């Protein structure tokens, strides 16, 4: 078999661009889906029944659809419903945010429910409002507790961004597969792509583990 690894070097700028898009997609998705997850979680915990039902419906809908379907849906159907043409990048971002917000909402809900009722009461007894108790007492503790879960969501997300390559977003997967089809260097490009994903993903996972040790609070 005749292998030619120089193809990766030849196309290094295209690969680098793909890496940049993948990283940006991950960062933007999480930057939106963390507050998004909190909002959906608060809706699910609301004392107002319609809001609670809306939150639950959101989570159950988006959590149980394959992400790739969401990506296609955002690309083909969304522009028909709302009259705006988004760039492929923004379309991919929407699909990812819808999905990850649903997961984050469940993660936050588990975290918030794990904080015992007494903490809530201690805040209320000082005269705090429900919102202040949530913001100052419950959420900060919950976030520390769920950091490992958010971390694995992050690492999954980093890899799952590759699904947006199907709508021609120029991420790492899309660019690598483009190079493959132009050069016919299948084994080389798939291996290089795997190596890049792994090399980028592993330190992220380690970093979040470290954050957990650093910021984790014991009782």
């Amino acid at each position, binding site marked *: 078999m005749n292998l030619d690894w120089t193809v990766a070097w030849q196309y290094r700028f295209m690969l680098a661009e793909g890496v940049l898009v993948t990283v940006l997609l991950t960062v933007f998705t999480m930057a939106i889906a963390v507050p998004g997850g909190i909002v959906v979680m608060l809706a699910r915990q609301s004392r107002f029944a319609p809001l609670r039902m809306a939150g639950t419906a959101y989570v159950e809908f988006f959590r149980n659809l394959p992400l790739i379907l969401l990506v296609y849906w955002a690309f083909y159907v969304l522009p028909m419903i709302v009259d705006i043409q988004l760039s492929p990048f923004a379309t991919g971002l929407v699909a990812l945010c819808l999905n990850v917000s649903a997961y984050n909402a469940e993660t936050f809900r588990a975290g918030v429910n794990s904080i015992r009722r*007494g*903490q809530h*009461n*201690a*805040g*209320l*007894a*000082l*005269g*705090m*409002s*429900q919102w*202040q108790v949530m913001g*100052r*007492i419950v959420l*900060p*503790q919950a976030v*520390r507790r769920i950091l490992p879960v958010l971390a694995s969501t992050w690492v999954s997300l980093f890899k799952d961004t590759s699904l947006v390559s199907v709508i021609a977003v120029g991420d790492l997967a899309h660019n690598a597969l483009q190079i493959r089809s132009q050069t016919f260097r299948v084994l080389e490009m798939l291996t290089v792509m795997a190596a890049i994903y792994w090399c980028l993903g592993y330190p992220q996972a380690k970093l979040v583990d470290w954050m957990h040790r650093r910021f984790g*609070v*014991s*009782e």
Partner: protein
Amino acid sequence: MTAYARIGAGTQPVIVYHEVVKRYGSFTALDRVSGQVNRGEVVCLIGPSGSGKSTLLRCTNALEPFDGGRVLFDGVELPRAESEARHVRRRMGMVFQNFELFPHMTALDNVAVGRVTVLGEAKAAARKRARSLLAKVGLSDKEASYPATLSGGQQQRVAIARALAMDPEVMLFDEPTSALDPETIGEVLNVMKQLADEGMTMVVVTHEMTFARRVGNWIIVFDHGRIVEEGPPAQIFDRPREQRTKDFFSHLGWGG
């Protein structure tokens, strides 16, 4: 009434309970409980576990919604709406059995957070106040410590300082020493006695009979969600009138 003049008698009580009823399903935790707490008094609620004394305490600052009757604070009925309850709660300090310090904050910030969040005070001013309160409970050297690194007695003293930070008109103690190791109970009771000596109005749910007798001015005995009897400590501890009070003391091994 006997010849005993209750502290604050004749003035408007800080807290009035009027026929308070609380049910959990078919279980009646409070069965038309009436009573009062006067300004400057240390009222101790005693009685067997599950007799309703902690429930009444939690009804006092509306942490526990109740099913019937009224609670008046400073002459005004407790609001039923959660959004208004907080204006009353911040005028009462509460100390919990399990301390419930905020584990993600230092001792200093635990004490300061109420003033910053609820009163909107600047952080520096709130911390200054918190420092003097930590000094008051003898924990000046622990201001940078997180709760997990403190002993139970130290945590409870921080919790007392946290409640005091809001300049409460009354302090509510819910079995403040029940979760403590025996050797740290004394340091918490000493802080509470100091508060009582300063004239703080206190409602204390406790199993510490020695404390109730020496520091309390008025003792209320609970059983099965009702007040069995109430009176000054000398009367309750030395000459209890009710058989159920005597039974309770004999269960505790307290020679009545």
